[in-house]
């Protein structure tokens, strides 16, 4: 409620472009944050390397889209003008999912087999190592320079209520909305999605009713990483790919997750828009660069006074240890 109020007041005072910014950033943040929430809820992994899958997504999209855009320049009437960016983003999702599976097979799987106690903390530290590894592998293999593109879809910006939104931004929001909708549908209505939710509630219970935990774990991790990679891929025009590009989405996604309660997937979507609004308002009224300070302090207050998040959630007990 307060969020909507702030949003309305802010958009009246400083123009609707703030609202548009919020919605676009929020949509993408929702993707990263739902992935993070999924990891937390189902696998009890407090993922520190989630931003790196964002980076993998943007890197893949860059290397897929560059030849496509060269081709488009030569044949401007090709069907790739519309489809090309979507192919790049889809590739990002696939590579993200594959890298998630690789991470599970090489890193989390062995730890799960060996570790018995203190899983949450150990896996968290493991993801810290993974994050450093991926950042520096990127630097080692692809160099530290900015790998960006001018834009996915060229053409006149779309105008809504006196605000000009570039087609890329509009499409980014559309992609985010579609993916979140599909994801929500998948989690709520398909039997696989129900199985994932069952595992997140009670692993032993899920095992008793015959759910293959190994499969669900693999599926979850690949889904979570793919979501993050889609965000990375579709935001390539805003965030060029470089080794540490994932840190900012990571911080923000963690803000979202703390705000909305660990493991609460629908809450994460709402939380993403709140954090995006907070960031937009901070940048607007206090200045650029403060957008870490103010949200950090606010999130700290949430942690202190309502550690289960503003929407509450049940998984906290497992993560308390």
């Amino acid at each position, binding site marked *: 409620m307060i969020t909507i109020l702030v949003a309305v007041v802010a958009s009246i005072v400083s123009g609707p472009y703030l609202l548009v910014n919020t919605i676009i950033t929020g949509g993408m943040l929702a993707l990263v944050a739902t992935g993070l929430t999924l990891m937390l809820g189902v696998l009890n992994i407090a993922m520190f390397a989630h931003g790196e899958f964002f980076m993998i997504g943007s890197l893949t999209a860059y290397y897929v889209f560059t030849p496509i855009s060269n081709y488009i320049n030569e044949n401007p009437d090709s069907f790739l003008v519309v489809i090309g960016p979507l192919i790049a983003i889809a590739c990002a999702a696939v590579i993200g999912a594959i890298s998630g599976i690789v991470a599970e097979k090489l*890193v989390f799987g062995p730890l799960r087999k060996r570790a018995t106690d203190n899983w949450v903390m150990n896996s968290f530290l493991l993801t810290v190592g993974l994050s450093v590894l991926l950042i*520096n592998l990127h630097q080692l293999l692809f160099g530290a320079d900015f790998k960006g593109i001018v834009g996915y879809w060229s053409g006149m910006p779309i105008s809504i209520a006196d605000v000009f939104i570039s087609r890329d931004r509009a499409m980014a929001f559309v992609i985010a909305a579609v993916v979140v909708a599909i994801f929500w549908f998948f989690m709520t209505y398909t039997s696989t999605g129900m199985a994932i939710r069952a595992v997140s509630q009670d692993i032993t219970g899920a095992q008793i009713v015959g759910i293959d935990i190994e499969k669900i774990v693999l599926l979850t991790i690949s889904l979570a990483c793919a979501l993050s990679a889609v965000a990375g891929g579709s935001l390539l025009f805003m965030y060029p790919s470089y080794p540490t590009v994932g840190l900012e989405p990571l911080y923000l996604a963690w803000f979202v997750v703390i705000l909305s309660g660990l493991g609460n997937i629908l809450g994460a979507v709402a939380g993403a828009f709140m954090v995006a609004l907070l960031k937009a308002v901070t940048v607007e009224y206090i200045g650029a660069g403060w957008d870490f300070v103010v949200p950090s302090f606010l999130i700290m207050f949430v942690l202190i006074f309502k550690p289960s998040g503003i929407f509450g959630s049940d998984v906290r007990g497992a993560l308390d240890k």
Partner: protein
Amino acid sequence: MNSTITTSQQVNLFDKLLDKLCLTPAGLLGLILLFALPLIPPFNQEYMLRWLIYCGFIAAMSVGFDFTAGFINIVNFGYAAVSGFGGYTSALLVINAGLSPWLAMAAGGITAGSLGLIIGLISLRLRGIFAACLSWFFGLALMGLATKLVWLTRGPMGLRTPRLFETDSNLPFYFVIIIMLFFIYLVCKWIVRSKMGLAFQAIGQNMDAARTSGINPVYYRVFNFTLSCAIAGVLGGFYAHFYGILTPDVMHTSKTVEVLAVAYIGGRGSLWGGAVIAFPFIFLMEIIRSSLADLPGLNLVIYALVLILVMIYYPGGFAYFYDMNIRKSKNKMLRYFFNGRA
């Protein structure tokens, strides 16, 4: 352990002293080696000395970090930020108030300690990953402040700070950091060996059980945080007055990760593990970084790989390996050498 007690009823003075200093004969030898190191030929060049000082800094940081992470089992993810806060306090006191760098370092420790008091107090209700997140966000906020308060800290342009010694030589700095490392280790070890350390471990393993046995977690947790952050603050002061320049980068999460990696590879809950492992490990990393300059990031790739492998396959780290294999030597002389008599 038992056999040593039966063989010598009265402990001689040397052993008593060693025990008071929390050292084994092997540890003493290591300390002497550290003091002699800058005089041994390959290490007496200035650039190597700079690396060694950085090793010492990370070693001391990892002792302070392990004091929290290894005992009350809370990973202070904003450790580098607290350290940087101490460094900035110290530097600003020297520049604006004309304090001597030595006093300012102590002041940096006190302010960082009070920051630790605050973090300890507000994270009291939180456990595990939540407390880590809180300290992490605290660190992010601090770093954001240091970047944005340009009128005070000059932000990313960097704050020039006077050095501790007026010389160009790095030798005095090296001795200072080794002495600081030793004192930090000593203080932490004394506390850990006392009843308080027992309480820390009880809280770290199971807070509810500890509370049931009459341990007041509030006092112990806050005390632990305060001391660990004060150590970070003093070290941050040293960092500021050694390099002569401070940027908000010293507060970055990646610095915490560096300290964390060393502390965990060394062995959590041992205090000395991180301090011992830091010297060969960080030194090797610096060699790789400087000799393979055309492969940027390779040292950090190795770094992360070692951390991941240790976390999965050998969670006890170097200290566990040492306790299991080297300490239990069959030879009586060697056993004395590695364990001391106490």
